[in-house]
C-alpha cells in the first residue's frame, strides 16, 4: 500500500517548521527521523536529484530559500507526482500568506490545517489551488 509516511518542513539548521506524521511513531523515533532527514537532505546540491533513498523508503524533497519541504513515500511511488505536489502546496502557502516566509510558519504554526486540506491520511486530498484557497479564505472568515 502506498501512502505518505510523513511530511516535514525544516530549515537549513534543521529546525522543524512543520511535521505531519501519517504513521504511529513514538516521540524519540520522530526526533530521530527529523535528524536523519536533515542529514541526508542538506548535503545535496542543485545538481543532485530531488529524490533520496531513506531507510526502506525514499524522500522526495525540494528546497525553497532556506526551507526544505520533504515527503517520505514508498520506493516504488511516483517521484515526480510528489515533487509537484510539494510545489502545488508551496504555491498555496504563498498565496495564503502573501509571499510566504519561514516566519509565517513559525507564528502560524497552529494553522497546519492548511496541510490537511491538501494531504490527508497520507494521501493527496485536493489538488486544485483555487478550491483549497477558497476553502481557506472561508475558514479565515469564520470566528
Amino acid at each position: 500500500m502506498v501512502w505518505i509516511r510523513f511530511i516535514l518542513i525544516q530549515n537549513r539548521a534543521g529546525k522543524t517548521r512543520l511535521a505531519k506524521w501519517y504513521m504511529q511513531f513514538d516521540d524519540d523515533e520522530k526526533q530521530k527521523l527529523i535528524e536523519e532527514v536533515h542529514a541526508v537532505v542538506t548535503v545535496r546540491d542543485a545538481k543532485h536529484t530531488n529524490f533520496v533513498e531513506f531507510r526502506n523508503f525514499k524522500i522526495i524533497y525540494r528546497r525553497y530559500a532556506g526551507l526544505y519541504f520533504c515527503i517520505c513515500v514508498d520506493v516504488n511511488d511516483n517521484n515526480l507526482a510528489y515533487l509537484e505536489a510539494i510545489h502545488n502546496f508551496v504555491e498555496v502557502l504563498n498565496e495564503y500568506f502573501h509571499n510566504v516566509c519561514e516566519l509565517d510558519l513559525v507564528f502560524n504554526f497552529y494553522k497546519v490545517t492548511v496541510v490537511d486540506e491538501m494531504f490527508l491520511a497520507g494521501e493527496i486530498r485536493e489538488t486544485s489551488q483555487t478550491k483549497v484557497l477558497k476553502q481557506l479564505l472561508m475558514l479565515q472568515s469564520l470566528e
Partner: protein
Amino acid sequence: MPAVSKGDGMRGLAVFISDIRNCKSKEAEIKRINKELANIRSKFKGDKALDGYSKKKYVCKLLFIFLLGHDIDFGHMEAVNLLSSNKYTEKQIGYLFISVLVNSNSELIRLINNAIKNDLASRNPTFMCLALHCIANVGSREMGEAFAADIPRILVAGDSMDSVKQSAALCLLRLYKASPDLVPMGEWTARVVHLLNDQHMGVVTAAVSLITCLCKKNPDDFKTCVSLAVSRLSRIVSSASTDLQDYTYYFVPAPWLSVKLLRLLQCYPPPEDAAVKGRLVECLETVLNKAQEPPKSKKVQHSNAKNAILFETISLIIHYDSEPNLLVRACNQLGQFLQHRETNLRYLALESMCTLASSEFSHEAVKTHIDTVINALKTERDVSVRQRAADLLYAMCDRSNAKQIVSEMLRYLETADYAIREEIVLKVAILAEKYAVDYSWYVDTILNLIRIAGDYVSEEVWYRVLQIVTNRDDVQGYAAKTVFEALQAPACHENMVKVGGYILGEFGNLIAGDPRSSPPVQFSLLHSKFHLCSVATRALLLSTYIKFINLFPETKATIQGVLRAGSQLRNADVELQQRAVEYLTLSSVASTDVLATVLEEMPPFPERESSILAKLKRKKGPGAGSALDDSRRDPSSHDINGGVEPTPSTVSTPSPSADLLGLRAAPPPAAPPAPSGAGNLLVDVFSDSPAAQPGLGPSPEEAFLSPGPEDIGPPIPEADELLNKFVCRNNGVLFENQLLQIGVKSEFRQNLGRMYLFYGNKTSVQFQNFSPTVVHPGDLQTQLAVQTKRVASQVDGGAQVQQVLNIECLRDFLTPPLLSVRFRYGGAPQSLTLKLPVTINKFFQPTEMAAQDFFQRWKQLSLPQQEAQKIFKANHPMDAEVTKAKLLGFGSALLDNVDPNPENFVGAGIIQTKALQVGCLLRLEPNAQAQVQWSEERGEGMQSVGGQAPQPVCGTLSRQQQQQPPWPQLQRHQPPSCAWLLSPQHQVAGSGYLGPVDGLFCFLLWLPWL
C-alpha cells in the same frame, strides 16, 4: 511579526513566540517557558471562568511549548472543552491539541469521542471536516472502534458536501489501514466505486486512493472499478489543456488524478473486455504521443507533471507486459531521457528502464542504450544516479554483452564510492559466474575483484570461486597459476591469501613442474604472508600446509618445523593451536596411504539451484535471465543474487573422498555431461543464505516500525525449511534477513548437546532490548531440557553476540523447541520465531553390526508398531555418495556388505535419551528407474545400559514388551525424518564434524577448510 497582522491572530501568543525567539540561551528559554507555564496553570486553576478566546490562546501556547520539545502535563481538559465550542477557531485549536497530544486517558477519550460524534452529526461541513481530520490524524484503534461504522455512511450519503466526502473517504482509508477488521464491508462499497464518476474531481481524487487500498485486499469486490477508471482516465487524457480549469496544473490536466488512476489499474491484470482494453491502450498511446509533442510551457512544473503521468503509464505498460509495441515505445522514450539535462529525469529513466530490461519484449531495445548507460556510470555526479546506472547494466546484461559490462563495472569499481562498492562487487561476481563462457575469464574476474576491492568481497564471493574451481577440473591448473602470480604482488589483500592458500593446497601440484613455482617456492610465498594475516586466514594456511605435506613430500620437514614452532603449538588462539598440534601429529603418525586418503582433494560441492532465480524463471519464462532482483534496496543481503540457471549435476571428475573410517565407499559415477552453455554449469553459492529476505513484519507499516506482539508469535513461514537444512548438519546459518543473521554451531553426544547461537547485527545501528529465548511448546518440557545463558541486551551495529545452550534429551520428542528473538531496531520492536535445529536424530548414535546380526534383529522387529515404511520420490538425482553422506549426517552408521543388494543402504544406530535408549535399524532401497526410494526403519525400546558406551546395542536388543516401548511415538516421526534426509536442501560435504568430537581423527573426515 507578520502573523499579528492577520485578523485572527492571538496577540499574546505572538508576543510569547517572539520572546522565545529572542532568548539568547537555552536557560533563558526554559526560564521564559516556566514563567508562561506557571501563568497558564494559574489561569486554568483560577476562580474566574476563562472565556473561549483565552482558553484557545493558552491551549495554543501549551501546544507551542510542546512543539519546542517540552513535556506538557496539563491543559488537556481545557483543550477538550474547546471541542464543544461553536466557534470554528476555538474548535480548531482544540482538535489540533488533541491530535498532537492525544493520550490514552480513558476519561478524556470518552469526552473526545463524544465531541467528535456531535460534530459528525452536526451537518455543518466545516465541523464535520474538522472531526474527520482529527480521526484521520490520530487513526487509533479506539477511534476506529468508535467511528468506523459511521464514516461509510457519511461518505455515500446523497446530501454530504463534496469536501466532507473527500475527508470521509480518506478518513476511512486511514482507519482501514490501521485496523481493517473494524471497517465493515457492505452495500456502501458498490457506491464507493461509483465515486469514480463523481462530478467533483477532488472527490474522485480522494476516492481513488480509498478504492486502490480496498481493492488490494478484495480485488473481486471492486472489479467494476477497472472500466470506470479507464473511462475517467480517458476523459482526462483526451481533454485539452484548459478543459479541466481548476484541475489543470501548468497546462497539464489533472496530473495527480491521472497518476492515481494509473496506479489503481496496476492492481489488476489487463482488462478482459475488448472495448475497455482498446480504450485503455488508446489512453496509453496518447500519453506516449504527448511526450513527443513540444512542451506547452518551459516551466519545470509543466514537464514534471507531464512526466509524472508518463512514468506511471510506463509502469502500467510494464505491469501488463503484454504489448510489445508499447513496451518498445516506452523504452525509446526513456532512452531520450537518458541524456536529458534534468538529473531527475535521467535518474528516473535509468530506474524505469531497469524493469523494462526484464521484459522479453523490450530487453533488446534496452540493450541498445548500453553506451549511454556506461557513460552515466562514469560521469554522473550524483551517486544515486550512478547506482541506478549500475543496476541497469546489471539488468540488461546477457551473454552477448557480459564481458563489456563486467569490465566496465570492474573499471568503475576502482573509483566507486564506498557506499556502493560491495553491491558492485556482488553484481560483478554474479554476472561473471552467470555468463562465464570460459572459466579462466571467471577466475580472472573474481581475482580482479579481490585485487581492486578486496575489503568488499564478501565470504560468499570467494567461497564461490573455490567451489567452482573445485568442481571444474579444466580450470584448476589455470587457477593455480593465476593465484600464484597474484600472490607475488608485494601487497596483496588477505582475501587473495585465502583464495591462494586454498587453491594451492588443492591444486598446487598442477604448477609444481615449473621451477618458478616449485613446491618450496609455493610454500615460502604463502608463508611470507602468514604472519600478517588474521587468525582465520592463518588457520586456513595451516590446512594448506598439511595438504602440502601430502602433495609435496619434500616440504614435509620444513612444514613440520613451522608447525612445531612455539608460536604455533602454544598459540594463544585455540583454533590455531589445535590445528598445529593435530596436523603435526597427523603428519608424524599417519602412514603415507592414510595421509593421502585423509588429505585427498576436496570432493565436488553439491549443486543447488538458486531459489529466487527459479521463481523468476517460472514467472517470466526464458529470457528472464537478466534479473529484476537488483540488490539496491538492501546491498547487504546476498540472497537476492540468485544468478544461475538450473544446474544439472556438475561433477566433472569422480573424486573419491577421504574415508578413514571406512564409511564411504565407491566414488560416485560420473554424472552425465551437462547440456551446452557453460553458464549452466555453475552452481549458486548465494542460495546458501536461507530465506529470500524474510521480512520481520507482514505489512509495510510494520516493516518500518512494528509493535511487537505480547506473546511469542508463530514461527515464521520458512521455519520448517530452515529447520530441515539442519537435520543432517550441525553448523551453518540458521536465519538471515536485512537486520539479523543467526548462525548455529552445535555438537551432540549421547543424549547431551551443546549449541552455540551467534546473533549478528547486520546494520550499523545498535539493537536494544535484545532478548532471545527458547520456548518449549506442548509437552516438550518433559522431553527436552534446554538451559540457556542470558545474553547482553544490547547488540552494537556490526557486532555479534554468542549464546550457549545446553541441551539434554530426556525422552523422545516430536517437535523442536522454538527460538524467539526480540529486539528493538531504530525504536521499532522486532520479533521473530524460529524452530531451533534440535531434532531427535541429533541424539542418534551410529552402531556397527554384522550382517547376520542385522537381519536377525530386523526380523525380530516385526510388530506393526515397530516398523515405519515410506516410499517417496527422490527430488534429486540419486547419487550414492550424497545419500551416504546424508545418512551419516542423519546419525546412523552405514553398514557395508549387509544387504545382498549393493544398491541398498543399511544403517543402524541408537537414539539416546535420558529415560531410555532406542535401537534403530534402517534400510533405504533406491529404485533408480522409478526415482523412488523405499525406506524402512525398525526400532525397539530397550533399557538403558547404564551410561556405558553403547555396546552393539542393537545386538543386545531383546524385546521387552512389559516395558512400554516408545516406538509408537517414534514411528510417527521416523518417516518424516527419512524424507528429510533425502530432501534436496541438505548440504553435507565440507560442513565439519561428523559424529562425536572426542578424538583427533574424527574431524579429519573433511578438513574444516573455511
